[in-house]
């Protein structure tokens, strides 16, 4: 029986709570706003003996991921956390962690990438890492950050995958906002995550294994194919784990969260905390009779192309909200929009799509912005024409 306690927690502390309950073998991490709350809270758990993790207070984020890789290759559970420039500094190691198939779990508290230096939320950091081979889960709330962190352990360690997982939450907006979070009892979390038995370990001195050999043209390609195959198996694992989590803890997770989508003719797709604002606005618009719904995407890697196409099949117009820019992409669109377009086009779908860049560097997202998106969508559905493919919300021009 799960016994949950409602705790008033900041999002970052909710992640730290999950880490405490997971009690990983090794955590190597480095502070960066707005993630620091996680690493310092976890350090305190270590200092107070609430966990018996080996905590490595490294000298940089590159070193954090380097240590995580060495530790994970040595056959135990490994976690870390970072944001923005820290994630960017890890770039080389992100690819190596995924390519060595090491099931590391990392919290990312989304923050804008420099320059200009900015400590507030956008998704340029994790979107910049989207091709690194990590599974990416986005969280709307502290509760989701907590739940996703626990599930991430199971997903990463699944024998069909052995892939690292990043769990995102919005910097400050979620990371530093206090919400009521249902924290399960330690024993239930421990039981849910189970124990991890590595297939290979550096510490198995009786069966020596070489990790990180190099490839030429004769093997590299096949290894990359194996990696992408593993990623293609991830969606099923994510859904299975999300269901099982629901059975145990009462909150079921899937690929995305659909709100008012049943008879929707217009749809908004968004990640993380802005889903809350969008939902509120949509609730009001529904009262006025607008047939609009929301798809809050939880899983961005692997990208749920087929599932999205199916969810959007009866919709006439789709707005995709991006909290980052893929510089130089078609009309300077955002990465989420590009993926949605690709999915719809490949499926032969004919919905009209429009992109909105919003909230860069922590710019506030006001309900009226979502209202504007809704009225644009209505116009697009009525006229069948997209006046402007890529648009900006809340920008002074």
């Amino acid at each position, binding site marked *: 029986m799960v016994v949950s306690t409602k705790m008033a927690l900041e999002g970052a502390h909710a992640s730290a709570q999950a880490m405490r309950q997971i009690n990983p073998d090794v955590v190597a991490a480095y502070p960066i706003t707005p993630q620091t709350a996680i690493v310092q809270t976890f350090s305190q758990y270590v200092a107070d003996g609430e966990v*018996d993790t080996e905590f490595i207070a490294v*000298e940089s984020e*590159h*070193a954090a991921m*380097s*240590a*995580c890789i060495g530790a994970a290759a040595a056959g135990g559970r490994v976690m870390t956390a970072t944001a923005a420039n820290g994630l960017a500094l890890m770039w080389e190691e992100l690819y190596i962690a995924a390519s060595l198939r090491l099931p590391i779990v990392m919290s990312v508290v989304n923050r804008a990438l420099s320059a200009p230096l900015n400590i507030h939320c956008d998704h340029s950091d994790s979107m910049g890492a989207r091709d690194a081979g990590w599974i990416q889960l986005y969280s709307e709330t502290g509760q989701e950050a907590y739940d996703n962190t626990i599930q991430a352990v199971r997903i990463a360690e699944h024998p069909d995958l052995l892939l690292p997982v990043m769990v995102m939450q919005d910097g400050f907006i979620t990371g530093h906002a206090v919400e009521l979070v249902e924290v399960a009892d330690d024993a239930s979390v421990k039981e849910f995550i189970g124990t991890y038995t590595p297939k290979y370990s550096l510490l198995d*001195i009786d069966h020596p294994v070489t990790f990180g*050999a190099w490839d*030429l043209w004769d093997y590299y390609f096949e290894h990359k194919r194996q990696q992408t195959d593993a990623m293609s198996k991830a969606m099923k694992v994510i859904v299975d784990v999300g269901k099982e989590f629901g059975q145990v803890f009462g909150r079921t997770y899937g690929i995305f969260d659909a709100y008012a989508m049943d008879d929707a003719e217009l749809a908004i797709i968004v990640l993380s905390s802005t889903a809350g604002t969008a939902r509120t606005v949509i609730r009001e618009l529904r009262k006025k009779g607008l047939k609009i719904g929301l798809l809050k995407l939880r899983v961005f890697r692997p990208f749920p192309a087929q599932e999205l196409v199916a969810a959007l099949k009866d919709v006439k117009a789709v707005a995709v909200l991006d909290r980052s820019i893929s510089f130089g992409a078609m009309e300077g669109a955002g990465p989420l929009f590009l993926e949605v377009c690709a999915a719809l086009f490949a499926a032969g779908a004919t919905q009209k799509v429009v992109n909105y860049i919003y909230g860069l560097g922590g710019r506030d997202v006001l309900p009226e912005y979502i209202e504007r998106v809704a009225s644009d969508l209505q116009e697009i559905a009525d006229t069948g024409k997209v006046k402007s493919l890529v648009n900006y919300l809340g920008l002074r021009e």
Partner: protein
Amino acid sequence: MVIKLKEQATKPERLAPGHRFCAGCAEPIIIRQILNAIDEPVVVGAATGCTEIATSMYPYTAWNVPWIHNAFENVSTTIAGAEAMYRVLVRRGKIPERNIRFIAIGGDGATYDIGLQWLSGALERGHRFIYVCLNNEAYMNTGIQRSSATPMGAHTTTSPAGTVIPGKVQWRKPLTEIIAAHRIPYVAQAAPSHWRDLMEKARKAAAADGPSFINVISDCNRGWRHGTETSIEVTRLAVETCYWPLFEVENGVWKLNYKPREKKPVEEWLKMQGRFQHLFQPQFKHVIAEIQARVDEEWESLLKKCEAE
């Protein structure tokens, strides 16, 4: 502690033959000397570089012991992560204590240059591991580019000797001293020519209860430009000229391990190697004098450090 060759020769090879090091390369010689000297089980990491490339081309491996390569700059941290995992798994009773020794191997590029931050961090945190720098005084794997270990006057492809500039103009970084300044339990400088000294140092490093560091001069005949049969001779002369003194710093105590009976002129060492040939042209001869002066100065300062103790 006494190394008996007869006994050592019967120990199984930890680095198997059939690797792809160049003929005459000192790196596999040094690795075998060190791994042979250490009796405990080992987990080895290597930085990107010649050692990694020569021993781990998929689907082959020359390693008969657990081994990992992560990237160029972070072998220290990678091995530190493995060591941390070992400690916690033993503490949690998940695996038995097997007295494993963790060894990180990096070239001078990986150690003096790109990886210095990672190494310094791992030393400061006190992970129990042995860091071995295979110091061939340049980035050899990528075709002989200068590093901060490259000697003054040496020709490399990024410090080429030209008509105006006589090869590398800077003096080398005093890395062994920089590491010693971290006040870790054991720091040493060694050479494969003095194999008994090197093997004893490997044992001391393995016995140190904390981080240890051995900087080993490692001849590269491709980069240093000489025959494949003189590798050991060239490193011996580096020691005999006091260009590469053999010393150790054990718990803060400096000790000279070898004092040449007669200190040879550094010119003799330079003469053996094509990378210094341009220095023997009249317009660059002053560089040889400068090198000799710097070698003398460092040697005197080392003697003082060792005597003062």
